[in-house]
């Protein structure tokens, strides 16, 4: 634990810390471009120069200098000031002064730091260097003349995303950052390099020239594109969410977000259901709220008990699922199901469906067994944690069709029967985690076999969900014994669908289907009455991520057209049906939820108790099929998004969009 002095302030930092970290511990701001907490240290921008004694009589790069006992660091001396001004002058030699037309303007590290640490005038008269633009795919726009060669993007691609596709070519002043052969970066995390870039060299292509940062309203939200529950900041102007950026949450997403999280938001203004529809004579016709409610009331006449059912879709938030469950309860029905992907797993206790090792806990595993799960597509931010574990020496084993997970994997076979024949390296390891995906749970007995394997290995067991709304609905007990097949077998006469778009609804042909949702997708086309709901950015909602972590989002914009928050639709409908729900506002609703389901009362993970003995096991077999076939098009919002459609076409189906060289 070295003790040192920074500007006369005594600080003590953990062993292995750098001088820069020591300065931050002392509350001193050190300007930097290449240094990033989550990436390896490069030390090539030289902006973090400080004066250090003892040592050579010259300023030293604090990011690459280990803190040592008895050091005296000056961040406010004349030498440090002059060094910073000099470095800034060098950086600006080849940086174009095009801030007024640069998308980074207003949130640019170089802009801010040249204001704070620069000289304020230029002594440079020669021509500036110019660099041709590089093609980096549908997400990242490049203006490489602005690049200051900090190599953050290179380090991110290699270390976090795990695709060695971005690199530097040529030397010295001629150094250029490019993707390998100028192909699109194939990572599903490529959008993060836009945030990492301290200048405007890498900017967001879909967001190019859309807005300035100071005209945007920032709202904390929760992402619903996957079950990770990425903490996001929704930037909106007027009635449109223009971009979605990650917020830092060390337990969930660190400071990353997947490309789907970032860029599916343009699907929120396309293909929207903006008014109620009623099916008349086999055709959907627009209707007023009153007409739609009356049509439902007619269908509900004389129907009681389990003749009424409900399904909760992938994006449904806790509030609306609870409102639907209460409404069904008023009819005496318990025919409701959240596992609309047809997967079957034990729902007797929270630990049985949660991702018990926790997302952050994955990092500390020594061995990881993936059963029927492709985390790269199902939860890219869990995949980055597995990569981190591998860096610490973990080994990964997987059962399922071989895919590129960005790290070395020992494939044990495509059939889940491989669970019965595990290699010694796994059975003798300590700190094992078994991650079961929906690909295993859709196989008869697959869940039980995976959990029994975990119990036999003394391993942590986690279910890798694919849908943001699933765990919240499971915590509410929105399930039926036997799953989706049992609901279909009960043949309900009236069926409520909370945004169910990934499920084949032909099994419910006999039912009068009421669809509450946002986009005209599969569910809407099958429905008899459509009620326009609110998308995840348009309502204050609660979601539980795959760990069971309760997270609340705020409303960024209002629903389009006649759309309403989903639970208020159910509340209004209940009054028409004569079964008025006992809550009138969000506070009352959340109080009710907290009363009935204490695990959903507060944000964070509520303790779920240890996993009891595995339900049943035995020999199961069946070829594993991963639940996601197209990473970019997994929900109606993403399918409506032109950016996601292009990503899918270009990165997964090999279509070429690269602009011709100029």
């Amino acid at each position, binding site marked *: 634990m070295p003790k040192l002095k920074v500007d006369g302030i005594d600080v003590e930092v953990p062993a292995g810390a750098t001088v820069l970290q020591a300065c931050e511990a002392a509350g001193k701001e050190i300007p930097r471009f290449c240094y990033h907490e989550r990436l390896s240290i490069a030390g090539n921008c030289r902006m973090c120069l400080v004066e250090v004694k003892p040592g050579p009589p010259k300023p030293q790069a604090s990011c690459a200098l280990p803190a040592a006992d008895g050091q005296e660091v000056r961040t406010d001396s004349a030498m440090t000031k002059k060094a910073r001004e000099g470095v800034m002058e060098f950086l600006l030699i080849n940086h174009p002064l095009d801030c007024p037309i640069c998308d980074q303007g207003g949130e640019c590290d170089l802009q801010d730091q040249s204001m704070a640490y620069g000289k304020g005038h230029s002594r440079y008269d020669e021509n500036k260097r110019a660099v041709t633009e590089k093609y980096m795919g549908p997400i990242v726009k490049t203006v490489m003349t602005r690049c200051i060669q900090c190599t953050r993007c290179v380090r991110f691609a290699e270390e976090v995303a795990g695709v060695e596709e971005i690199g530097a070519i040529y030397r010295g002043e001629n150094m250029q950052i490019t993707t390998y052969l100028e192909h699109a970066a194939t990572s599903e995390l490529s959008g993060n390099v836009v945030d990492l870039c301290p200048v405007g060299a890498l900017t967001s292509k879909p967001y190019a020239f859309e807005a300035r940062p100071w005209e945007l309203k920032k709202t904390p939200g929760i992402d619903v594109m996957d079950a990770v529950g990425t903490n996001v900041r929704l930037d909106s102007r007027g009635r*449109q969410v*223009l971009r979605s950026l990650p917020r830092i949450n060390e337990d969930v997403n660190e400071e990353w977000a997947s490309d789907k999280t970032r860029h599916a938001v343009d699907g929120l*203004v396309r*293909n929207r259901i*903006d008014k109620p529809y009623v099916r008349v004579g086999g055709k959907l016709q627009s209707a007023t709220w009153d007409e739609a409610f009356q049509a439902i009331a007619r269908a509900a006449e004389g129907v009681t008990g389990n003749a009424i059912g409900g399904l909760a879709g992938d994006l449904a938030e806790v509030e609306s699922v609870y409102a639907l469950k209460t409404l069904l309860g008023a009819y005496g029905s318990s025919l409701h199901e959240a596992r609309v992907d047809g997967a079957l797993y034990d729902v007797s206790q929270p630990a049985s469906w949660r991702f018990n090792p926790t997302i952050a806990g994955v990092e500390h595993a020594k061995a990881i067994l993936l059963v029927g799960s492709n985390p790269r597509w199902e939860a890219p931010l869990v995949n980055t944690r597995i990569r981190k574990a591998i860096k610490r020496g973990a080994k990964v084993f997987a059962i399922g069709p071989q895919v590129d997970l960005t790290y070395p994997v020992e494939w044990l076979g495509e059939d889940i029967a491989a669970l019965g024949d595990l290699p010694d390296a796994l059975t003798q390891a300590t700190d094992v985690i078994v991650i079961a995906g929906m690909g295993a749970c859709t196989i008869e007995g697959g869940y039980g076999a995976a959990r029994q394997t975990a119990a036999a290995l003394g391993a942590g067991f986690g279910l890798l969900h694919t849908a943001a709304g699933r765990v919240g609905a499971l915590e509410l007990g929105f399930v039926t014994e036997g799953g989706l097949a049992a609901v279909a077998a009960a043949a309900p006469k009236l069926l409520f669908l909370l945004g169910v778009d990934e499920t084949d609804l032909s099994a419910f042909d006999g039912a009068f289907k009421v669809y509450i949702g946002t986009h005209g997708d599969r569910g809407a086309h099958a429905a008899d009455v459509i009620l326009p709901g609110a998308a995840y950015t348009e309502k204050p909602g609660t979601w539980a991520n795959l760990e069971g972590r309760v997270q609340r989002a705020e409303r960024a914009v209002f629903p389009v057209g006649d759309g309403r928050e989903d639970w208020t639709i159910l509340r209004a409908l209940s009054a028409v049906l004569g079964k008025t729900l006992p809550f009138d506002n969000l506070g009352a609703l959340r109080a009710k939820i907290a009363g009935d389901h204490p695990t959903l009362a507060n944000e964070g993970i509520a303790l779920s108790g240890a996993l009891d003995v595995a339900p049943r096991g035995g020999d199961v077999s069946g070829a594993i099929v991963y639940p996601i076939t197209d990473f970019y098009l997994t929900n109606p919002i993403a399918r409506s998004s032109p950016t996601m459609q292009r990503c899918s076409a270009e990165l997964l189906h090999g279509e070429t969009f690269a602009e011709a060289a100029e």
Partner: protein
Amino acid sequence: MGALAKIFTWWNGATFGTGLFTRRFGGRVGSDSLGNVYFKGGTDVHGNPRRWVIYAGANDASRVPPEWHGWLHGTIDVTPDELPPARPWQAPPQPNLTGSREAYRPAGALEAGGKRAAATGDYEAWSPN
């Protein structure tokens, strides 16, 4: 225009005082196509010859045609009748139309039909058919 309006308003033609001054000191120089009459007489504080215009109608400086504008502001000393004839490509001058019916309306203004281009927050609605 009545005598009372002449005394109490200023926005059409010369005021009472200007009319009196013009009758006493002004020498008529000429008039333009709109009927505005141009005068000169005496010198101003800098010793330059004083030139002025009395509008036929609204007192709107943009109603002075460019050739008379040049004379009025001392850019040229000759009156426009002595200038070379206008080139065939020269468009006739147009006074400022702001506030009039012919004023420019951006596309999307209610007076121009109200059909505006798509903006932030506009959405594409789904239609089942």
